């Protein structure tokens, strides 16, 4: 295999030969290479997070009609390093009355739960961590571990606000898992397997064309699972001061921060893998490295879309968020899955164009019906405007005659 066309398997092969020639046993060499791969992925992900934070602040600044950070280095690219140095050198404050083990374990578990997802994602045709045949369920199960981290943080801090924030956060996360899991049945149906490698290989035409409504539902649920705007009720300063990570300082808070941004990027990568075709693109069979490049480009596009939504849309209230999930997304997801399964079964797989056409028409019908129903419901129960009495403007023409005379 060529080094330029396919660098990672070439390096793995070379290392294997080298270690075997030193006389180590084969099992040991395999385990050692897995360990080295895991460490490299974790290091790469965490170091990439610094660039992501910089990109987010710059792009967010431009959306809000201001420059982002631009002092530290050209275009401010070293700003993240300055932030990191500050967070590393801050003191760990342990409040009185905390539970030591949950308090200290929570940030570690939060980051671990995000990094564990990177083990199953295929970066190109030959570069992936491991190909378990229940990859999609694994990703959602690891999300459950992330919720455990939030509960540990909430209970470990001896603080009522942290506890309330943790419970609201977990309630939001487990609610938005439901439509996400239901919608993930659709790519599984189309590709015939739950393993991520098979799903990417079945996407000669990306699944976003086959199932756009499912794609949108999955995207919304990913944003909600992250706790990003517009679902960032949990960390809004006006609601619950910083939510479940109030009592954390220094690198422990830094870990939560990194977990948040890395989770956003990981959601973008998972979305790309499942719905946008992963590493598929022109010319991937001859040059597998191009797969990694395509994946990076697609993921950064999806991440940009997440940023655009974050800096444009105002925040949801908690009852609006729950209503969105249980009243709109879950029935829509169920209907989409059932209808897509019926249409997919009715049309044989060979007639690709007719199949895509039928699925697109069905998705459009579902979308329009849902839109119609929501509009009718909103017309019948208009949202109560919660303000006080309308106060008149303070202008001279609204003053009464007596006040005008005393003013003159």
């Amino acid at each position, binding site marked *: 295999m060529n080094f330029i066309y396919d660098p990672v398997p070439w390096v793995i092969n070379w290392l294997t030969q080298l270690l075997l020639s030193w006389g180590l046993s084969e099992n040991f060499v395999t385990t050692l290479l897995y360990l080295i791969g895991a460490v490299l992925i974790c290091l790469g992900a965490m170091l990439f997070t610094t660039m992501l934070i910089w990109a987010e602040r710059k792009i967010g600044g431009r959306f809000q009609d201001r420059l982002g950070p631009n002092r530290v280095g050209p275009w401010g690219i070293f700003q993240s390093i300055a932030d990191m140095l500050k967070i590393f050198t801050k003191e760990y404050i342990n409040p009185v009355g905390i539970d030591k083990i949950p308090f200290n374990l929570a940030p570690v578990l939060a980051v671990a739960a995000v990094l564990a997802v990177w083990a199953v994602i295929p970066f190109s045709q030959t570069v992936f961590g491991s190909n378990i045949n229940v990859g999609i369920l694994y990703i*959602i199960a690891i999300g459950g571990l992330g919720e455990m981290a939030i509960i540990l943080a909430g209970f470990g801090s001896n603080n009522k606000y942290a506890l309330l924030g943790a419970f609201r956060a977990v309630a939001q996360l487990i609610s938005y898992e439901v439509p996400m899991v239901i919608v993930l049945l659709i790519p599984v149906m189309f590709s015939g397997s739950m393993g991520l490698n098979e799903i990417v290989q079945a996407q000669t035409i990306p699944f976003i064309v086959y199932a756009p409504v499912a794609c949108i539902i999955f995207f919304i649920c990913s944003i909600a699972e992250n706790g990003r705007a517009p679902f960032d009720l949990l960390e809004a300063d006006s609601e619950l001061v910083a939510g479940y990570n109030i009592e954390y300082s220094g690198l422990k808070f830094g870990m939560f921060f990194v977990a948040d941004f890395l989770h956003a990027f990981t959601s973008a990568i998972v979305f790309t893998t499942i719905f946008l075709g992963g590493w598929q693109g022109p010319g991937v069979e001859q040059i597998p490295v191009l797969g990694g490049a395509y994946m990076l480009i697609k993921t950064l596009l999806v991440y940009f879309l997440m940023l655009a939504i974050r800096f444009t849309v105002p925040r949801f209230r908690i009852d609006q968020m729950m209503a969105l999930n249980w009243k709109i997304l879950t029935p829509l997801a169920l209907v989409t899955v059932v209808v897509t399964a019926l249409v997919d079964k009715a049309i044989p797989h060979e007639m690709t164009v007719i199949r895509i056409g039928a699925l697109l028409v069905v998705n459009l019908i579902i979308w329009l019906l849902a839109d119609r129903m929501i509009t009718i419901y909103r017309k019948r129960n208009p949202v109560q405007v919660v303000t006080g009495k309308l106060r008149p403007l303070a202008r001279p023409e609204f003053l009464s005659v007596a006040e005008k005379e005393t003013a003159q």
Partner: protein
Amino acid sequence: MTGMQLIFLIAAAVVVSSAFMSVTSRRMIHAALWFVLALLGVAVIYALLEVSFFAVVQVLVYVGAIAILIIFATMLTRRALEDHGKQFNRATLMTLVIVSVIFAGLVFSLRSWPQLQSMTAPLSADQLDVGVLGLALTAPDGFALPFEVTSILLLAALIGSIYVAYERKEKKK
């Protein structure tokens, strides 16, 4: 000792010790968190048994839903004067004796069984695939009927539990 045996021993030690801490903790929240650790250990045991689907479903259902439900219930039923009084009631010593007798009985009744030392048969990858389980669960001459009955049972249980736990505003004093 091979790597798999070592992993099994570590996972088994984690499971047994967390289960023991879970049934003997004074504070309920500590018991719930040790329970979560025991469930994660059991998931590792399932992965060792090469039933990867059940390992993932264990984390998803038990840790991600049931354990969180138990933690929520612990939070909702806390009182200010928690951990008051003795943790164990009068029956503890007697129970210890009875449970040890039951365990010894289970162990001794297994010793005369000839297939005790059996090892795993090597299986091909597609026999352990989750698709085989899916086909069995939906085949009409397979297990489709128990599957459907179990789904209806779950639906009835969930509707019932929502109804029981619902706070009726008009009946509160």
